[in-house]
């Protein structure tokens, strides 16, 4: 009997998810023992036409990381959906847009300008990428950019979600064990649409810091103060995204003295991650006077960036007005 087939693909992502998979150490040998790796651009050579030639549903498990930034990503999403039985949105980018999704705050023009003509870019002739270009050998093309970055499930049907930026290695190992056990008939896969490799609660629930339900008079930036190592960070005025963020990382950042930035995405039942944080942050502000509330809120330098750092593309509003009116010059 031939082994089940495994694929992993990256779209608009940083490559950290691939590293996280390799970070499962010797468990990668189990993956190799249980699966035939048929397509994994970062680890092996394969062409898109090889994937196109595969029969539909022939890939058992496909981990997809990265958001949908351009028409190549979108094409591959449709292709791998057709070829894979189980398609997993793997990592924050695929689930909710993550850092590449922050471009949804800006117009396409601003995004391109930032990438190609800021002071750190060596581009004296102000050259911009062209979707198609005539060379003596013929016309060559590159993928065209979408004005708004989309999450994987905004483009194709997704079977499971695995959050994290990147997903923690022990969680990846647990999921791989589960899939292998399920293939051998020794375990059952969770229902379609489930979030796997993460907890069902919030980071606060796993956080060892002490909470006293105390309200605050000002927001602080963690680098500008000596934070109490025992006390809840939010109660010290440090914007910590724990209250809305899904558990599963063992509260790594708050345990190490840094605030949660929300990379595990919305907790179970949270529809809009930023909206939940607005509710949580507004609740700890100790003031009933509009002027004073405004003064306290001035301490939050970039509220939308704070609340949607990982989740903008997956939020209810998805993208700013500027990003919705694209003009490429």
């Amino acid at each position, binding site marked *: 009997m031939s082994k089940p087939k495994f694929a992993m693909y990256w779209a608009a992502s940083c490559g950290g998810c691939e590293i996280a998979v390799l970070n499962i150490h010797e468990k990668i040998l189990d993956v190799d023992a249980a699966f035939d790796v048929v397509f994994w651009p970062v680890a092996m050579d394969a062409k898109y036409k090889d994937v196109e030639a595969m029969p539909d549903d022939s890939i058992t498990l496909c981990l997809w990381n990265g958001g949908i930034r351009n028409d190549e990503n979108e094409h591959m999403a449709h292709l791998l959906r057709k070829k894979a039985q189980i398609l997993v949105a793997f990592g924050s980018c695929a689930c909710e847009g993550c850092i590449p999704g922050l471009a949804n705050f800006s117009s396409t023009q601003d995004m391109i300008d930032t990438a190609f003509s800021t002071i750190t870019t060596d581009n004296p002739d102000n050259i911009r990428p062209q979707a198609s270009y005539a060379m003596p050998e013929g016309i060559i093309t590159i993928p065209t950019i979408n004005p708004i970055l989309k999450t994987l499930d905004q*483009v194709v049907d997704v079977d499971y979600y695995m959050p994290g930026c990147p997903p923690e290695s022990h969680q990846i190992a647990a999921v791989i064990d589960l899939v292998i056990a399920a293939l051998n008939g020794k375990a059952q896969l969770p229902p379609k649409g489930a979030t796997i490799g993460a907890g069902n609660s919030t980071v606060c629930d796993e956080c060892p810091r002490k909470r006293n339900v105390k309200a605050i008079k000002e927001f602080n930036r963690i680098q500008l103060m000596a934070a109490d190592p025992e006390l809840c960070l939010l109660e010290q005025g440090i914007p910590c995204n724990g209250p809305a963020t899904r558990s599963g990382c063992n509260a790594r950042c708050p345990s190490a003295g840094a605030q949660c930035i929300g990379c595990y995405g919305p907790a179970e039942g949270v529809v809009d991650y*930023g909206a939940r944080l*607005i*509710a949580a942050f507004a609740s700890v502000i100790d*003031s009933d006077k509009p002027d004073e*509330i405004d003064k306290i809120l001035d301490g939050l330098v970039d509220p939308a960036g704070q609340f949607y750092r990982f989740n903008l593309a997956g939020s209810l509003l998805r993208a*700013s007005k*500027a990003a*919705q009116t694209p003009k490429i010059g």
Partner: protein
Amino acid sequence: MTDTPETKPLDSTRDKPFEPVMIGFTCNWCSYRAADMAGISRMKYAPNVRLIRLMCSGRLDPTFVFKAFAGGADAVLVSGCHPGDCHYATQNYKAMRRFHLMQRVLAQMGIEPARLKLLWASAAEGQIFANEITKFVEEVRALGPLNWNTKPNAVEVPAEIPVEEVQA
């Protein structure tokens, strides 16, 4: 949920003058009763706001507001008991703090803060409620349609608002 491919901006079906589509959240104890008072006193005011009754303005999850804007609303009204008068003691202060924070986030998203309004109205203030709504509708009419267009399958809003005047 995967987007359906067809794109239809909300306003493309409207060839009539722009009528703002607005969602209003009222609390059970004060502002909903103010609206009720306006109704039973037969006061006339703009019919653009669709009211949704919550038990308290403190129940207003910011998700409701973002969902309204994402789904095609041109503006959102949040209303509750006057400060100090909340049926649940202090929850309207919570609504006030959320309102201030929401306005900042909405501004960063390119939604004018004037599209989100906070209004205190007691159960006796039917006239104030009616006047403020009419004023708010005119302010939003001046701003123009929001046309939030990140979802191709945004909820279709009927081009004409189904209202009719009923004889008492």
